[in-house]
């Protein structure tokens, strides 16, 4: 009896298991031509150049990486980059999750404009970002800079300025990952939880957060990669002082221009490895049916 019951239940479930039809791709010459064009394009534009940086870095074994890590100023630069990136990720995650919830769940005047304004950092030149921050927070003649300096806060040519510039350029990434997921999941589950007496905080921790988990993970990875790699905005606001406000990306330029291509390639390799590793890891662990 139990046997047949299980059998009956399992039977209708089977077709639902594979709604994904086998791809009906007719392999015509055009298919192969397109495949070839795309592969060649990406090979010459991305794969080959990137692989050359790797071979340049390891042209003489691990020496260039080792000499990089022996250089005290370089270690400071790498630490600064990591520090700035971590702060940018923390700030943008808190801000991104908060503002995404507000945008999706609430109505308020000016929402549409705010929604558009949040995309601005995506299309503003990093150099303009740097200039904008200097004009407001510059210690000598910025709008707020002298006042803040009077209170003992130096922002431009110091770490807070670098964090702000980095946070600015990476700002929309988290929001763009979370908003679609929030729109997709709707509010039925939360309403159900509310009717069962769950508090706002409980609903957030036990219902909302688990369902936007992958959006946040992907947002964190994109923010991290973007933050580690920011160059133009940081160049304007940091002052580029060796051993103090020189980040790893600024060091790449400095080394290359000072006829140390080995050092530049090694630094570039370290930066690229972190960013690409993040992307690859998430591409692998992210569930395929993620909205």
């Amino acid at each position, binding site marked *: 009896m139990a046997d047949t019951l299980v059998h009956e239940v399992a039977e209708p479930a089977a077709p639902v298991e594979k709604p994904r039809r086998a791809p009906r791709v007719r392999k015509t010459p055009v298919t192969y031509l397109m495949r070839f064009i795309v592969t060649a394009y990406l090979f010459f534009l*991305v794969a080959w150049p990137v692989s050359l940086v790797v071979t340049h870095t390891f042209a003489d074994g691990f020496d260039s990486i080792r000499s990089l890590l022996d250089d005290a100023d370089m270690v400071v630069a790498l630490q600064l980059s990591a520090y700035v990136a971590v702060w940018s990720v923390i700030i943008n995650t808190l801000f991104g999750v908060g503002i995404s919830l507000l945008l999706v769940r609430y109505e308020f005047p000016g929402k549409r404009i705010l929604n558009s304004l949040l995309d601005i950092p995506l299309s503003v030149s990093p150099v303009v970002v740097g200039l*904008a921050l200097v004009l407001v927070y510059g210690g000598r003649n910025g709008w707020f800079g002298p006042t803040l300096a009077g209170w003992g806060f130096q922002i431009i040519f110091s770490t807070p300025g670098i964090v702000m510039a980095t946070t600015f350029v990476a700002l929309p990434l988290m929001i763009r990952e979370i908003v679609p997921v929030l729109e997709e999941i709707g509010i039925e589950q939360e309403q159900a939880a509310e009717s069962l007496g769950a508090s706002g905080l409980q609903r957030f921790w036990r219902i909302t957060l688990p369902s936007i988990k992958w959006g946040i993970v992907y947002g964190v990875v994109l923010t991290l*990669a973007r933050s580690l790699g920011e160059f133009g905005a940081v160049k304007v606001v940091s002052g580029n002082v060796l051993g103090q406000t020189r980040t790893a*990306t600024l060091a790449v330029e400095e080394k290359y221009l000072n006829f140390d291509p080995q050092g530049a390639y090694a630094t*570039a390799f370290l930066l690229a490895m972190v960013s690409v590793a993040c992307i690859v890891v998430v591409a692998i662990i992210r569930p395929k049916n993620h909205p």
Partner: protein
Amino acid sequence: MTSTEIAAVRPARTPRRSGPRSTLTRSSGLGLGIAMIWFSALVLIPLMAVVVTAIDGGWDVFRSTITNGQTAAAIRLTVSTALGVTVVNVIMGPLIAWVLVRDRFWGKSVLEVMIDIPFALPTIVAGLVLLSLYGNDSPVGIDIANKRPAVFLAFLFVTLPFVVRMVQPVLEELDRDVEEAAASLGASRFTTFRRVVLPSLAPAIAAGAALSFARGVSEYGSLVLLSGNLPFKTEVTSVRILSSIENDNVPAAAAVATVLLVISLAVIVLLDVIQRRVAARG
């Protein structure tokens, strides 16, 4: 008018349009307030400062800065190259997306990761990467460093993901039955693509194109090592702004930056319009 009078007048005023009422609760309103303070301090006020500084110099200064030979050449080069790159992306982007979604072959997932690399790679590293294949010690003998094509190549690299990543999800969602219906009614593959697939992809392509244009116009990092920044030849707008900043000529920097800001804003508005179109169509 005293403040009490204003208070008395206010409720009588009819709202300009019957937009959606605010549904903010006290705590979410507080959250919005904090978020807005941070967003203003970080983004809105600084960007406003750029425009105000540009206007402060007066219209004549603004115009003479923009029409200065070297600056005008930089703006022309940046905008025309970004347009050219966008055209290439509009063709290659959907093609790449199509192959990634519809084709199946060994190594496809590697291509998938490759699309994200230009986005993940620090821009200065992107420049270095391109320099290693297309620079003066190129293994294939193509040396475009410090020449105009270098700008084109750098833009092409950094804007690669935009159209692809916009088109891909739409293509995945697309109902293949409609295409099959068209084919069964005698439409050729090309006709099916042009009349059935392309119209549904158009908004995504347009949005991706707008983003890739904006990214191209604002690009800086990847050009530093690759293009040599030669005035009138390979100097782009961002580099021009930076040299003005370094020469302590802030009004000039702000004027050129305002031009870039206007372009970015135009792109943002365009994106909003496209998104609304799509949403309206359902």
